[in-house]
């Protein structure tokens, strides 16, 4: 038992890897067995993530040395509260995605489940590793899986969107490698903890190189997290994906946000030498104003959306903007808000993507999810309720998780110098989301359906109308949706303990000494 506990940090990588490999071997032979295996693996990953979160909440960073090579020579994994939380978010969304894809996608696309496992493996690895190059490798793992998942989407559109997505990510990878090797060339290490120590002591002649490397990293992570001038790929890519995949992709922008978070807290703080803190200030300012711009651009996209999936994509973009501007402020209070807002927005947008899938299912391919009145959604009380719950959460209205998260966002930025801009942007974003979601909801669920008069539907009576007209609603999608919404509800109900957890996590992050000491035990002894 003790041995298992010791190996716990590697399990979120190993379990999906093994399950993915088995699923590839299984191929399309037994969709039922594949479904079961995939679900079991994800459930096990979720259990590991839960155990790691509980372990991390006791305080301290759990370091795991791969092959027992001592860092900075070997690669170490580390779980702190932030890492644990991200693992949880990934496994929650992955479970919902697998449930939603299980009965619809799996028979048609036998390798879907395997790809999902590899995607989860890449995400988990990225959240666990302490090595910059290893982070690059896990980025590539999750990106390769996401290319394949995206190609399983809507035919022509998916192929064209994939081309753009792959090209922009390959450019991002090239820049990432440039930055990583530049940092190695100057500082002689790739371990994040070691880097943070050496950046502070770098010679003045090398300062420009370090600055350019760090700013290159900001660009790379900005591409992943859809920071404004770099984020135009997002709406097109997400709308081309099939809806369960889009739900999984809702986590992908958060990888960029996570990496930027790790980067900003490991940069020398204001009390370091002037040049070093100037770098941290530049990065903060970039993120702050980039975040504000992304949020406002997302709000415009939200208002311009003509179908539900475009609306949800725009909400993903604007939530990324909110997270980035919080990183730009960078106080412990805003980091706490990041850690509350991030799971909330991921769950809510993923739920909205699943709802889009269900709406397309009941309205047929003709009307699909366009925001026009059409038959199919009348008497879908449950679907309407789910939409209302997700919409209320996304717009940040009480009593659901969005309200709590937005409250923390606003409250934490109160002391920032630019609070006027931030509040204006966040509130404008909420208003846009509220207007657009209310309009979408009333068109989709309240407008009398074109072609059926109220008389007709009354004649049929409840028994007939309740019978599914087109494709039967997928049980798996509904279960996945319920799971996501209830996780969102947990954030709202258990707001106090979660806020306390986030507060501890934020303090842990703003004091990177703990991270450095547990990842580099011999840090003091080294010259």
């Amino acid at each position: 038992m003790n041995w298992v506990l010791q190996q716990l940090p590697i399990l979120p990588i190993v379990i999906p890897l093994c399950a993915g490999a088995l699923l590839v071997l299984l191929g399309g032979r037994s969709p039922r067995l594949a479904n079961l295996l995939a679900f079991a693996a994800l459930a096990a990953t979720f259990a590991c993530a839960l155990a790691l979160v509980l372990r991390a909440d006791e305080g301290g960073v759990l370091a795991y040395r791969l092959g027992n090579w001592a860092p900075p020579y070997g690669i170490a994994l580390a779980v702190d509260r932030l890492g644990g939380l991200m693992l949880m978010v990934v496994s929650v969304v992955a479970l919902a995605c697998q449930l939603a894809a299980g009965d619809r996608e799996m028979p048609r696309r036998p390798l879907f489940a395997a790809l999902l496992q590899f995607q989860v493996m890449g995400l988990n690895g990225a959240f666990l590793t302490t090595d910059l190059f290893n982070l690059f490798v896990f980025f590539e793992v999750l990106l390769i899986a996401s290319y394949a998942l995206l190609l399983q989407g809507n035919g022509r559109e998916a192929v064209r969107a994939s081309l753009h997505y792959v090209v922009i990510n390959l450019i991002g990878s090239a820049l990432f490698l440039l930055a990583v090797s530049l940092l190695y060339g100057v500082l002689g290490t790739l371990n994040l903890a070691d880097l943070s120590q050496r950046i502070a002591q770098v010679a003045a002649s090398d300062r420009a190189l370090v600055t350019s490397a760090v700013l290159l990293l900001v660009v790379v992570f900005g591409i992943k997290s859809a920071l404004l001038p770099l984020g135009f790929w997002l709406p097109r890519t997400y709308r081309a994906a099939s809806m369960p995949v889009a739900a999984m992709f809702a986590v992908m922008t958060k990888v960029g946000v996570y990496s930027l978070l790790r980067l900003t807290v490991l940069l020398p703080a204001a009390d370091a030498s002037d040049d070093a803190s100037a770098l941290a200030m530049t990065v903060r300012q970039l993120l702050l104003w980039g975040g504000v711009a992304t949020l406002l651009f997302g709000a415009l996209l939200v208002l311009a959306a003509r179908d539900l999936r475009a609306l949800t994509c725009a909400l993903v973009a604007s939530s990324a903007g909110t997270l980035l501007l919080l990183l730009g402020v960078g106080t412990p209070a805003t980091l706490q808000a990041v850690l509350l807002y991030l799971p909330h927005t991921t769950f809510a947008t993923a739920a909205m993507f699943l709802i889009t899938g269900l709406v397309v299912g009941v309205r047929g391919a003709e009307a699909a999810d366009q925001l026009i009145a059409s038959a199919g959604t009348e008497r879908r009380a449950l679907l309407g309720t789910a939409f209302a719950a997700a919409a209320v959460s996304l717009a940040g209205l009480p009593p659901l998780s969005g309200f709590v998260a937005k409250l923390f966002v606003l409250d934490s930025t109160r002391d920032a110098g630019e609070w006027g801009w931030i509040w204006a942007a966040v509130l404008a974003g909420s208003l846009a989301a509220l207007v657009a979601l209310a309009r979408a909801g009333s068109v989709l669920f309240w407008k009398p359906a074109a072609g059926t008069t109220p008389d007709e539907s009354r004649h049929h009576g409840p028994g007939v109308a309740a019978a599914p007209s087109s494709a039967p609603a997928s049980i798996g999608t509904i279960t996945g949706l319920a799971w996501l919404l209830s996780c969102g509800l947990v954030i709202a109900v258990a707001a106090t303990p979660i806020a306390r957890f986030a507060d501890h996590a934020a303090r842990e992050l703003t004091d990177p000494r703990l991270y450095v000491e547990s990842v580099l035990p011999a840090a003091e002894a080294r010259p």
Partner: protein
Amino acid sequence: MAALLAIGIGLLTATGAYLVLRARAFAVILGLTLLSYAVNLFIFVMGRVAIDRVPIVRPGLETTVQSYSDPLPQALVLTAIVISFALTAVLLVIAVRAHAQSRSDHVDGGAP
């Protein structure tokens, strides 16, 4: 030696960047390949240019930085080569499929 490498990397990057900004998928893929060559060379050079030095400790050779070349960038470059090679293959498959769909090599699936 270092100047030659720097010029080479610069040329590869410039050509790659120019090609990536073209509107034809073929040119873009070519550009990405050149960019990845430039990046690979860059990683390699970041371990400092050294001639006739071994990366693995050899008995009888003094264990100082002067007598060995840094093995880490070489390991990194191997990984980077494999990844960029695999991704170029993936991108080619996607480009061929896009071409088959729209009968056009334009990255937007037909000139606007």
